[in-house]
């Protein structure tokens, strides 16, 4: 089953669901009608099932394609992690230790600046050292 056809099935189910909902009843009334609610519920679970199946099929298809590529290449390399798009999910899989923090973000121990003994002051080098109020190369006030 191709992705397109699985989605068309999903769409049909969704339109059924909407049709049920749109039967002249408002949403809250739908909630008050358990039978209609359960119909909605059933429709939703079925829809989810189809969607999952569709995706599963899709990933299997892609995996086969990839393996085929490797086989034809000769040496089977260690599978490199796929480069995921910078979706919110993808970001969680990124290496946490990379990037961030430059000196400016480093907190002083106990939030006390060791040279000036200022507690709760700006982090990083003294902002007024050039005569204006500097932060990360930006001039804030002068």
């Amino acid at each position: 089953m191709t992705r397109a056809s699985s989605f068309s099935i999903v769409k049909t189910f969704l339109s059924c669901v909407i049709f049920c909902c749109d039967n002249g009843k408002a949403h809250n009334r739908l909630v008050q009608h358990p039978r209609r609610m359960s119909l909605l519920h059933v429709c939703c679970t079925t829809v989810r099932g189809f969607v999952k199946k569709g995706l599963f099929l899709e990933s299997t298809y892609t995996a086969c394609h990839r393996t085929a590529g490797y086989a034809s290449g000769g040496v089977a390399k260690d599978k490199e992690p796929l480069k995921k798009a910078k979706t919110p999910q993808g970001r969680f899989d990124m290496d946490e230790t990379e990037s961030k923090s430059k000196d400016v973000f480093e907190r002083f121990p106990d939030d006390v600046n060791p040279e000036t003994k200022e507690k709760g002051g700006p982090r990083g080098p003294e902002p007024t050292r050039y005569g204006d109020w500097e932060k990360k190369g930006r001039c804030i006030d002068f």
Partner: protein
Amino acid sequence: MAAVCAAFRVLGRNIVSSKALPAVCQASNRKLHFSIYGKKGDAKVSDDRLVALCDHCVVGICLLRSPLSIQPVFNTACVTKLFPTRSHTVAAQGGINAALGNMEEDDWRWHFYDTVKGSDWLGDQDAIHYMTEQAPAAVVELENFGMPFSRTEEGRIYQRAFGGQSLKFGKGGQAHRCCCVADRTGHSLLHTLYGQSLRYDTSYFVEYFALDLLMEDGECKGVIALCMEDGSIHRFRSKNTVIATGGYGRTFFSCTSAHTSTGDGNAMVTRAGLPCQDLEFVQFHPTGIYGAGCLITEGCRGEGGILINSEGERFMERYAPNAKDLASRDVVSRSMTIEIREGRGVGPDKDHVYLQLHHLPPQQLATRLPGISETAMIFAGVDVTKEPIPVLPTVHYNMGGIPTNYKGQAITHENGEDMVVPGLYACGEAGCASVHGANRLGANSLLDLVVFGRACALTIAETNTPGEKLSPLKPNAGEASVGNLDKIRFANGSTRTSEIRLNMQKTMQNHAAVFRTGDVLKEGCEKMDSVYKSMDDIKTFDRGIVWNTDLVETLELQNLMLNAVQTIVSAEARKESRGAHAREDFKDRVDEYDYSKPLQGQVKKPFEQHWRKHTMSYVDPKTGKVTLEYRRVIDSSLNADDCAAIPPAIRSY
């Protein structure tokens, strides 16, 4: 906004009720404002109201002090086009000056001297006296409200050196007066005051665009505002109105202020036939990133960065052979502008120059200026170790605004006398008290907000009693504003709002920026006149009433135009150089005496012949014609025994 919040505090519990009397209104009975305590907010409550207008609220108004909380409370409404904590004050990351004396012995009279000198003797010394004397008390009060200032080892507020502050009237070296909250003072101030103001029963009318003041017989009786959410129009009747709408940086092409800094308060006052003061004094910074408007610190040039033009030449060598790129800010700004005017600018429009840092070792940049590569990448899209940063002189602050006395009451000038406008107050960047005069010192603007916001509230509290009946308002008050609104909503000319706005911004940037000479300014005045007239041909696209941002942007453009014409015409008329207003053809200050020589034997120049005076500008909104008058600078402090006034002298640092 900060100023507004402060006012609320002082007035104690502020019950806000708005009388929704829409002249043209949709038939919705929905409660359009939210009240913290869930009051009904019915329009019938007609107690006296303090309606505070805030588009930009800079932290300023002190919240109610606890001793005052037992006093009678006033009904207060806050009408704002942004959510209170989104006002531009939140971007003020510098500190607040106050002569607390925590780091060394300090006296507010020395702060007074520094501010008077910084203003180039155009500041009103009674207002400066009031501000510097109240500064320590104001900062301590803020700290009692919970603002987390940074501390010394002993637990006192930590103060650092900043902004032209000195000890012993300039003779004792650098003073340490600047208090801060890590690197987010303005943000913290705004949130502290907003939080405090919620203790009181203030009604907030958020995302209401104030259209005009309701004036009757020279008295301000309230405000008419457009609710952006559903397009309904509301008239707020009040005994007192406080304007804290911020500056008008957006009249220029390059500015550090938010897109909402459109000078709405100044424009409302102008349309009411009242003057604005000293609008030609606009503070520039030489190196603002092209497009984004963020400023690049002078430390870049201090560490070896150079400014180059389209020919790759280090042009500062020609303008300042000794100091080169480390020349003072105004010299650098003017040199950059001259290069651009002479056609050696870079970019497709040849309207900016480059700041080159890639010749410096990357390690040095990273240690001395941490974070600059991030800034350059985010705001300019350049890798600072490979490419130069596009920069041009950028507007940062407007010293001018609505003229007020030291109590925060708006004034007008008739027959040589200052007359208070009953019912109208102004504070913050929108007001001109005037403490900054011709040039603002760093870290003084947050102080200005706090002190004068509180001053407005105190004045209102002492001149009014809660529960006073409001004077009647004409049934057709605000008709003109509604007519204007309709006209804009259905405007069908040929030029878009954005095009006219860009024309205005480019004209102002080219003609009324740092480099000012007679010809350039005159040409600018004529161009601004034609841009003003092109407003008649404006075209808007959105005819709806719900969230019509096209309409709101056009209203903002009308406000910007009024500010822009006053700025450029006042600048053209002022034939001297003073503070931030520097002219190539008149390089010196023209005072009543020549203060560079001994006064004895000098003849005092008459008022018409010298320039140590405030400009009061009026505009006819239909034609865009500006009329100018002048008003004396107040040279005496509030109490000569307590603090002697500073006689004018040559300003040199």
